[in-house]
């Protein structure tokens, strides 16, 4: 019985573990991959995309968040 319970627990846990792997953040010490995205500010949309590499020699805080007009 115990074996069966363990097997069932593992079967249920496996998909969750796989899904979680998609969201493991890049680790400290990793070279931050460059990217290019459309920029938006209070003054409007940028004419040219912003790249991470535009800010070389500066400290860049990249803050991902859920959705505009939500808290947190």
């Amino acid at each position, binding site marked *: 019985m115990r074996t069966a319970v363990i097997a069932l627990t593992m079967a249920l846990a496996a998909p969750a573990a796989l899904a979680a792997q998609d969201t*493991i953040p890049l680790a400290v010490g990793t070279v931050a991959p460059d990217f290019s995205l459309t920029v938006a500010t209070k003054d409007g949309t940028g004419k040219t995309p912003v790249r991470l590499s535009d800010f070389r020699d500066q400290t860049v805080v990249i803050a991902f968040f859920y959705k505009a007009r939500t808290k947190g």
Partner: protein
Amino acid sequence: MDAYRDQYATLFRNGKKVVLLAVSVDPDTALVSWARDKQYPFRFLSDPEGKVGKLYGAWEPKYKLDNRTLFVVGPDGKIAYVADPFQEIDPKAYDGLKGAIDRSAGE
């Protein structure tokens, strides 16, 4: 985002050698409208397909949104600090972030 705005001078040094990029799946027009309403002084980036969220491991596949993962990238281009998740509404979260920015950008 209000907390980022309200601490922009102290935490992000008014953008001097410290750049804040806030990334979500929202269309750029929604981000502009929000930033205008709230007078956010920093940049938003629109990533509707989540390509950068996936690249950085901030993506939540179930909801097709980015989690509140925060990275500090140093002047050397390497990731110096990760908060997963960054609890923007928890005042204590800012101690770690401020320490990371100060170490990266100099006291």
